């Protein structure tokens, strides 16, 4: 049996491992344009600052592919022949035939829609090649951890519009490192791009279209704390700024950001306005895409083509509210990868997302959420508590019709599995507040949260 997986990320690797665990002799091939090794994309910011090396963000030892018998193809997949059952590659490489195929090609950064978005000195912060570009702009190159092995092995088999192409670096034209970076887009990748610039000693501009930072997850009170924290670190947070253009100099280097509120000189711009399914290469194939570009899959992650499955950021799966769209999260990619692995083996498990949860770290403030938060449910009420003692934290419990449906927590650590259990048990607010510390996951010696009931 020939298993082919397009993508070397968490979804693809989890699937490959699931297959290998049961079938030691099946041929497993992973096609990746981006990298030789599976790495944690969520960890790029720490490689940038020098907190970790490329080796450190790889969960597997470097001999894992050999040891597990995974064949690697380092090239851009350009299409799928679902009749002849093969994946075509860029650069004139031999197509890869499959019996069962998994598409786990992930996301690509959403390009800037403004004039000047492709100027030199403008980039993203999603792929290894983005990291390489941003490090060159700000630090002048990689840390002593070095570059990933065979970093440029794909350049003969790539495409001009690939998210994994190397970008030209404005700092190298200027002959000096970036002094005034700007980051556009008030989400998680945006705040990471800001934080690494701060750690490099810069004072970046942070342009956010909305009224407050990350409105999809935070309310104004929570977000103000994050913004204050950014301000204390020297970030200029510009809320409610609509970008109009990225200005360039005569040499084609970015020179500033023009918004509806003014002009901001800038020599390095990170566009972080979200990601979209990396599925452009499937246009014209028999694989059905939805209007967002996600690969349409059923509950068992089967695509419209026989023997072809999809998992991770590129797959449009069914959410708990009945809608179908991609889930662009590490955990869901991992879970989908495991389900897809079983599908490749011939089992028929269903992918069930369960109650929503997530976590993040916003500058120095840790964030945990579970359930329905910021969904503006009918008759929802938000119980909010701000702790301002030895520990600073915020606790927000969303209540609907007398029972708790969501939690949004900043500053402390919480076991989301306990919070989810309470949501599923339809606990009352009173009961939850009385038991809250049973879900605490704070490090030892941290005094427990004491809520005062208003």
């Amino acid at each position, binding site marked *: 049996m020939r298993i082919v997986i397009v993508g070397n990320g*968490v979804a693809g690797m989890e699937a490959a*491992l699931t297959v290998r665990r049961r079938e030691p002799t099946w041929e497993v091939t992973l096609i990746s344009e981006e990298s030789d090794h599976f790495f944690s994309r969520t960890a790029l910011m720490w490689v940038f600052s020098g907190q970790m090396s490329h080796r450190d963000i790889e969960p597997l030892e470097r001999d894992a592919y050999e*040891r597990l018998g995974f064949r690697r193809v380092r090239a851009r997949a350009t299409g799928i022949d679902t009749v002849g059952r093969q994946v075509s590659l860029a650069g004139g490489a031999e197509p890869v035939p499959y019996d069962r195929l998994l598409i786990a090609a992930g996301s690509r950064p959403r390009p800037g829609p403004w004039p000047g978005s492709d100027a030199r000195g403008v980039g993203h912060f999603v792929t290894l090649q983005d990291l390489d570009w941003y490090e060159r702009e700000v630090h002048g190159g990689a840390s002593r951890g070095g570059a990933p092995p065979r970093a440029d092995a794909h350049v003969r088999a790539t495409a001009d519009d690939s998210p994994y192409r190397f970008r030209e670096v404005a700092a190298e034209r200027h002959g000096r490192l970036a002094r005034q970076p700007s980051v556009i887009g008030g989400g998680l990748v945006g705040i990471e791009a800001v934080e690494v610039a701060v750690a490099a000693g810069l004072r970046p501009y942070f342009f956010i279209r909305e009224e407050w930072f990350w409105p999809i997850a935070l309310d104004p009170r929570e977000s103000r704390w994050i913004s204050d924290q950014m301000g204390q670190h020297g970030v200029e947070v510009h809320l409610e700024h609509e970008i109009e253009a990225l200005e360039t100099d005569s040499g084609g280097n970015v020179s500033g950001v023009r918004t509806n509120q003014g002009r901001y000189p800038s020599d390095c711009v990170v566009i972080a306005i979200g990601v979209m399914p990396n599925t452009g290469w499937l246009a014209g194939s028999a694989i059905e895409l939805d209007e967002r570009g996600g690969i349409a899959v059923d509950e068992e992650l089967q695509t419209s083509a026989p023997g072809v499955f999809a998992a991770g950021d590129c797959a449009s799966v069914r959410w708990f509210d009945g809608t179908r769209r991609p889930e662009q999260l590490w955990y869901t990619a991992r879970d989908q990868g495991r389900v897809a692995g079983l599908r490749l083996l011939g089992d028929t498990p269903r992918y069930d997302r369960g109650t929503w*949860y997530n976590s993040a*770290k916003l500058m*120095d403030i840790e964030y945990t959420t579970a359930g329905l938060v910021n969904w503006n449910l009918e008759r929802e009420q938000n119980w909010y508590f701000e702790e301002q003692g030895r*520990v600073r934290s915020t606790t927000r419990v969303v209540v609907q019709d007398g029972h708790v449906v969501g939690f949004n927590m900043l500053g402390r*650590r919480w076991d*989301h599995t306990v919070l989810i259990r309470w949501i599923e048990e339809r606990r009352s607010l009173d009961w939850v507040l009385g038991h809250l510390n049973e879900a605490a996951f704070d*490090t030892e010696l941290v005094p427990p949260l004491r809520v005062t009931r208003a």
Partner: protein
Amino acid sequence: MDQQGQNGLLSTYREGWRNRSAAGIVVSALLILFYVVLYWEHKVQQHFGIAPLTAISEAAGLRNRWYLYGFLYSLAIIGGAVYYLRRHGNSRYNRFRITVNVAIQVALGFSLPFIMPLFGGQEVYFSYFWPLKYDYLYPQTLADLPLYFALYTVVGSLLAAPVLAVLYGKRWYCSWVCGCGGLANTFGDPWRHLTSKSTKSWRFEQASIHLVLFVAISTTFLIGLDWLIGEDHPAFHRIVAGDHWQYWSIKSFYVLAVGAVLAGVVGVGLYPLFGPRVWCRNFCPMAAILGWVQKVGRYRIKVKPGMCISCGNCSTYCEMGIDVRSYAQADQSFTRASCVGCGMCAHMCPRGVLKLENTWERAEDKERQRLSVVDF
């Protein structure tokens, strides 16, 4: 204010001296040189006609070079503690742990001159136990010590240390009390990311630490036997406990190979190249025993299921070379024998996935389960 987790991004890999650059190699060479001179000063004197450390000690009014060493050691852990707390002091656990450890070591170091007269001029440390302090259970040592200290060292080594490790894990000793651990977690902290996480290094550790433990126990046993029968068997006595440098004996070999070379020259000298726990991880016989005890005790690292993003901060900053991430991404709470409970994995985790705790509530995570990403 207590803010959990690592505050601010670290620039570890952008600092050459922390990454085996020429500066790092020079620091390592200087440390090795220092320990070689410290332990073999008589040889240095034979060859070069000077005893540098003794000369410095005398010039500074210290009784011998071991006092100078104590002074430098205290300086190193205090300086290292400042370095550490500036980076990680926002966490209460880190703050308490380092403060207690440094306080114990410095207090003992500086009170030594006052304690020694009470023990007939012997250097004694209440912070060490057999088998780390290999001679504390030698019959001759026990016989020479005041009764209460002899009792302290027997009860401490054979009963208190293991019992505390059952209740709190080996961390109570290795990360809160011990001098080697104290130096590693302060002066050695800049290099903690250099400890190898490879499977190979784990295999080496398991072989080497148990070999040293075997040698330590055998040596103690033979010396006990020598105490009983040595007088009637002079050849046996010479092989086991001959004390002269020119006559090699098992006892002097242990002092040299384990006490001087592994704990000092290799253990500290290689900080800048292989991380600060080379001795503790690979050679310390006390760590080996406490590690066994820890496996059956309450201590564990609890993993919050489903939340790990596999970033690797935990593994990178594990000074014992444990691939914490492999457990975290498999949702597997665990107890590893080598874990000294420094708490850095939980501290570095950006998603609050890890938590050190003492609890009887588990059985399944005693044994390493098959982990999805590492075991096949």
